[in-house]
């Protein structure tokens, strides 16, 4: 298969136009981040022509005319005509497997053939990875270290499933390769004073935790959570560094509170994500369900995000749940993301350093499973034609 170098060149030129359109549309919908707002302002300030275009695009009269025009331009007749003009390949029918149950063996050979076919298709792509990436990096997995209140540590990777240890009235139980839970042994015994444990997912690791109140926390790579083995105070306080996705058990009598750096997030019962990595420009609290309050003044509604950067007040924007929560669904999803943002996530998950030999200004859109080796992800980025990578000794070098 030939690579269309021309179209890649063209795409690079149009990239700017797509980006500006994304920013203007985001401006109209009031969901730009601080950085994106600045970027749009810079673009508008570049020339009178840009300013005129921006005013043109945000003028309600124009928008009304255009949307009316669109409603009056039907697309179905054209689509039907195109479908009769063009040839299509019927997609492979996977349902064959189920309806011919007795022929499973034969069908699985067919399926095998289909997979091989797909594989050949993939192989037919320009595959210069073999030369550019002699060393690959494997994806992260279920790795974590548990630190008990007396300072002892347990490497959870090597620990077998079952009861790990007992902390006072609580059993710490490893349920499967990526999950530990805290279970109160005797509910009638008074809880006593709170003793803190810490769960740490290193770079290249993630781990799930069920707290004694039944709340569920998934920790992303390079993160830790400090929490009491029993909740006996007026509130359920936990301390987060890095990123965690929380599903908090409802208990209005004992509010749940997450402390992340200098920020506090108060919760009744809800699902939300906190991204508080020290190397990210802002702490981001994204609400999926329920309600949370950030720093005692900003209440979030579902689908919204609070951004807290050191220089500014709390800012709320409409969240893109697909990208914010992608990691908990075992995915990387990037929409109009600058390369440094992509590479920060790569560095954490593939446990490597990233060295920028050059500044890449393009923005990237792609999604890929978190279980692929790093070469596949980097290959996606290289296909845009605007960046190249090399891997050496757990270090990825970014080049033009």
């Amino acid at each position, binding site marked *: *298969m*030939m*690579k*269309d170098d021309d*179209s890649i060149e*063209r*795409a690079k*030129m*149009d*990239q*700017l*136009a*797509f980006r*500006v*359109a*994304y920013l*203007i*549309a*985001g401006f*109209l*919908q*009031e969901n730009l981040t601080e950085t994106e707002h600045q970027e749009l302002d810079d673009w508008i300030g570049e020339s009178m*022509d840009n300013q005129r*275009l921006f005013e*043109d*695009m*945000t003028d*309600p*009269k124009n*928008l*009304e005319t*255009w*949307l009316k*025009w*669109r*409603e009056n*331009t039907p*697309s179905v007749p*054209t*689509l039907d*005509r*195109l*479908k009769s*003009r*063009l040839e*299509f*390949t019927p*997609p492979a029918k996977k349902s064959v497997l189920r309806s011919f149950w007795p022929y499973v063996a034969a069908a699985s050979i067919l399926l095998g053939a289909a997979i091989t076919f797909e594989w050949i298709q993939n192989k037919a*792509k320009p595959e210069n990875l073999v030369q550019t990436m002699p060393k690959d990096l494997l994806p992260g997995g279920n790795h974590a270290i548990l630190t008990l209140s007396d300072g002892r540590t347990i490497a959870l990777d090597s620990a077998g499933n079952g009861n790990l240890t007992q902390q006072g009235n609580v059993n710490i139980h490893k349920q499967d390769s990526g999950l530990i839970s805290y279970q109160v042994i005797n509910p009638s015994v008074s809880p006593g004073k709170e003793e803190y444990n810490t769960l740490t997912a290193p770079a290249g690791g993630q781990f799930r935790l069920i707290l004694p109140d039944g709340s569920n926390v998934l920790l992303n790579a390079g993160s830790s959570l400090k929490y009491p083995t029993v909740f006996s105070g007026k509130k359920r306080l936990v301390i987060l560094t890095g990123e965690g996705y929380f599903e908090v058990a409802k208990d209005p009598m004992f509010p749940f509170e997450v402390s992340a750096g200098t920020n506090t997030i108060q919760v009744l019962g809800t699902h939300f994500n906190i991204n508080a990595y020290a190397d990210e420009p802002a702490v981001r609290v994204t609400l999926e369900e329920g309600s949370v309050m950030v720093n005692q003044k900003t209440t979030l509604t579902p689908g919204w995000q609070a951004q807290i950067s050191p220089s500014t007040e709390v800012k709320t924007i*409409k969240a893109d749940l697909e990208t914010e929560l*992608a990691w908990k*669904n075992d*995915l990387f*999803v990037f929409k109009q993301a600058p390369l440094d943002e992509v590479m920060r996530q790569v560095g954490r998950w593939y446990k490597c350093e990233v060295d920028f030999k050059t500044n890449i200004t393009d923005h990237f*859109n*792609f*999604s*890929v499973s978190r279980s692929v080796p790093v070469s596949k992800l980097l290959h996606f980025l290289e*296909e*845009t034609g605007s960046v190249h990578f090399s891997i050496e000794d757990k270090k990825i070098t970014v080049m033009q």
Partner: protein
Amino acid sequence: MRKQVIHSEVEMMAGFRLGHEQSFTEVFDLLYHALCFYALRITKDQAAAEDIAEESFVKVWERRQNFIHFPVLKSFLYTTVRNASINWQKQSTRQKSKLIDLHSFSENSEHSKLDNIIAAETLRELYAALSNLPPQCRKIITMLFIEGKKPGQVAEALELSVANVSTQKKRGLLLLRKTLPHLFLLFSFFPF
């Protein structure tokens, strides 16, 4: 299900390369109006714009195996439409009058090319936000504000009570205010 939604763009492109009708339809639905709009900005002729947009899909389908990334595909389509529009303009000008000279082809400049793409893409993004409204709600909003129908007419056409229409209208406006605040300003000029 959720994963399927998330993977959509990558899967769409994979299906497109393999020649699947479903993926073709997805690409068409995403881009047809934007390409039409772009052609219209250059040709100022609705029928010509529709033809040019249609032909661009034939052309891209012939080369479907070359496209791995959606932005590259999009860029190819815009370029195809632009070239075809400029050609059309030259020909139709020749037919009308042989005297009009080069300075009328302002679309040749690199700047106006990008401007028109920015305009087409901005509207594409906005329309996508509008289509995120629940189907019936969106239909009511469209009939009321874009087609200019009266609540009574909408209720009759959709076999709903007038009360239901105004409830949905309020709900839609609330959602729209979040996605299209400037448009909401415009809508608020209409009497309730």
